[in-house]
């Protein structure tokens, strides 16, 4: 059954290939159904593969499917091959599953869009690239998928490219990602130069050749790559801007799947990270700093999608923190749970935006619970899940991460707990502003007319919401802390080695940590309840420092953007006109002046030429004769 693995990436690719020529003819909504069917088929293939993999004994759960030898140059041998192991299988299951749901949702959300088919073309290509990234058995093929998802992300962020803000957000996403990609490339060069291979299994077998310094360098370069893709400090600024894309894109690419690729990559290369304790501390620090910074920013944002975007940055920060502490299973657990509840929250936000005719400002929402019962109920589940209220998925997954962090360093844990408090607070703020209080969308203000009555979304949009809310409700079952026989711990544990568990924490410590998580969630929730349930306008709680993202973009603008612009202007006015044009003009002047002197030789009189020939001949003869006489 494992041999159907190739169908997972193949089906979305077929969907893409079919939709490119035929999409326009199929039109709205048939093209959407074709795209959805392709991804659903991919999910079915993933389930079949999963069954096959599970049937194998624990030690033999690795299967490589080689298609062809892609590059063979001297020592560099790269095969186009898939590897199925518990890690890639877990990724595939939730990527294809969530993708299928979001494709279904998009059929409703994108209805009537001018570029309806193009949307599904990009989306199918994205799923294909993501699966290539996840399933690749060597760094280079991973990189192909890595670039593919980056490209699709660019296209989809800039999907409504007639809007200036969308076009520049797309460019911003692409450029930030490119910085990370440079880190990936250099890491690949480093690993290849030390170990002579790019194949994961062989790299890990020869990882001793990297040495301590090499492992740290490779780990940090891969962290840079992950920071670009997964929006971590210092490259996180692109993700909030990427909310310019359609909401299903935000849910699929910028919450559930693509942005977790960096975390996946770090988990994939865990044997290299294991060689570098210093590198792991840096990773943990970056993750924690991102989690905290993004959580503070999310407390003050007005745009419903921006709150969710910063929340995503913060949650991925938790995952990176988990990787840094060596809790890979916890990182994957949080990744899966996050895909469920953040996908749900984004789709819910999309449903809200859809119902209010593209209104995204939280201050212009309110009281929607009565009008959008389905969205309200499902969003409620997502909200409680991400806030960390037991017994939903977020509580268990975040608790797993925090318990591991506590085992490594109580100081980091304290900051993590503070972040959890902020998470509960800002998500509750969002929830109360959107669904309770006055119906502010009814009040006309100078810039905005009063909106018409909001309408609940069609069933194709409600069904994914319901399915995801069930998953967000029960996702915790994947990794209950005191059960190691089933769930992710038993499934992924053998891959990452037994020394990574928090086994040295006592049962009592684990329980008290979980209680602390629950208390923090409830505290954050009730603070937001007191502050935001009735009032929407509280400038004191939304300082400009947080609204402007810690002036992070302004800093980049001042430190990199403006000097770069000045350099460009200097190049254009001085270097180009004086140096480059000067050199070109100088050469031309030189040639012309030499030519005007030398042209006199070309007199036009045949006898002059004849005389020249005769004199030349005489000179040659004289030379030969002199050589003969004096030799």
């Amino acid at each position: 059954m494992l041999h159907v693995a190739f169908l997972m990436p193949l089906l979305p690719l077929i969907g893409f290939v079919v939709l490119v020529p035929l999409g326009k003819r199929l039109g709205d909504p048939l093209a959407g159904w074709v795209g959805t069917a392709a991804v659903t088929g991919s999910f079915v293939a993933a389930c079949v593969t999963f069954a096959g993999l599970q049937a194998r004994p624990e030690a033999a759960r690795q299967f490589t499917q080689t298609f062809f030898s892609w590059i063979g140059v001297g020592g560099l041998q790269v095969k186009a091959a898939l590897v199925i192991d518990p890690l890639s299988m877990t990724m595939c299951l939730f990527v294809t599953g969530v993708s299928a749901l979001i494709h279904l949702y998009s059929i409703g959300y994108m209805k009537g869009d001018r570029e309806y088919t193009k949307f599904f073309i990009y989306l199918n290509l994205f799923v294909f690239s993501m699966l290539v990234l996840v399933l690749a058995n060597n760094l280079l093929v991973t990189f192909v998928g890595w670039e593919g998802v980056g490209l699709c992300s660019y296209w989809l962020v800039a999907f409504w490219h007639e809007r200036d803000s969308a076009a520049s957000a797309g460019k911003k996403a692409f450029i930030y990602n490119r910085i990370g990609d440079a880190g990936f490339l250099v890491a690949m060069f480093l690993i290849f130069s030390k170990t002579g291979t790019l194949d994961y299994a062989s790299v890990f077998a020869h990882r001793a050749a990297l040495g301590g310094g090499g492992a740290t360098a490779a780990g940090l370069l891969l962290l840079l790559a992950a920071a670009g893709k997964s929006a971590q400090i210092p490259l996180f600024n692109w993700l909030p801007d990427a909310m310019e894309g359609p909401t299903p894109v935000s849910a699929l690419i910028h919450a559930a799947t693509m942005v977790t690729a960096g975390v996946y990559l770090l988990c994939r290369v865990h044997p290299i990270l294991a060689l570098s304790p210093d590198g792991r501390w840096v990773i943990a620090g970056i993750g924690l700093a991102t989690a905290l910074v993004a959580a503070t920013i999310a407390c003050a944002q007005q745009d419903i999608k921006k709150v969710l975007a910063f929340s995503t940055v913060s949650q991925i920060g938790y995952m990176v923190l988990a990787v840094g502490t060596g809790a890979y299973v916890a990182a994957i657990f949080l990744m899966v749970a996050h895909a469920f509840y953040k996908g749900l929250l984004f789709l819910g936000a999309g449903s809200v935006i859809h119902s209010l005719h593209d209104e995204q400002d939280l201050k212009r929402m309110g009281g929607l619970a009565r009008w959008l019962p389905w969205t309200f109920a499902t969003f409620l589940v997502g909200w409680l899940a991400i806030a960390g209220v037991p017994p939903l998925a977020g509580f268990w997954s975040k608790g797993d991460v925090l318990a591991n962090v506590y085992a490594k360093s109580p100081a980091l844990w304290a900051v993590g707990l503070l972040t959890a408090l902020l998470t509960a607070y800002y998500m509750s703020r969002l929830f109360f502003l959107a669904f309770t209080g006055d119906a502010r969308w009814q009040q006309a203000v100078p810039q905005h007319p009063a909106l018409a009555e909001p309408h609940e979304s069609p069933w194709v949009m409600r069904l994914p919401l319901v399915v995801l809310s069930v998953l967000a409700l029960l996702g915790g079952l994947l990794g209950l802390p005191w059960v190691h026989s089933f769930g992710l711990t038993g499934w992924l544990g053998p891959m990452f080695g037994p020394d990574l568990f928090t086994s040295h924490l006592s049962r009592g410590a684990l329980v008290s940590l979980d209680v602390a998580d629950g208390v923090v969630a409830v505290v954050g929730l009730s603070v937001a309840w007191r502050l935001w349930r009735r009032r929407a306008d509280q400038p004191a709680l939304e300082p400009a420092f947080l609204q402007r993202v810690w002036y992070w973009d302004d800093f980049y603008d001042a430190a990199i953007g403006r000097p770069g612009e000045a350099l460009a202007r200097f190049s254009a006015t001085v270097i180009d006109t004086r140096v480059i044009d000067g050199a070109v003009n100088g050469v031309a002047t030189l040639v012309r002046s030499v030519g005007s002197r030398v042209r006199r030789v070309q007199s036009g009189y045949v006898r002059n030429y004849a005389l020249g020939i005769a004199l030349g001949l005489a000179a040659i003869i004289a030379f030969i004769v002199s050589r003969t006489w004096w030799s």
Partner: protein
Amino acid sequence: MSLPGPWYLGLAAALFGIGAIGLLIRRNVLIMFMCIELMLNAANLTFVTFARMLHDIGGQAVVFFVLVVAAAEVVVGLGIVVAIFRRRASATADDFHILKG
């Protein structure tokens, strides 16, 4: 009966000198052509002389090539001269210096 080789070489040198001087001092295109032919044939004579002196047929073979090339060159050259005559009724080489740089 036969003269020694150097006499022929001397004759060839004299012919070549006459041709070269004529080419340099005369303006008439046809005369200049004849001078060129004179020089070519002086060279031919040298070839043949050396072929006989050194008992090497190669020199005589080269003469055939020179004759053929000279004939071809005359055809082209005379063609140009005739074309020029059509335009203006003179055969003075100096009149055609419009090709100067």
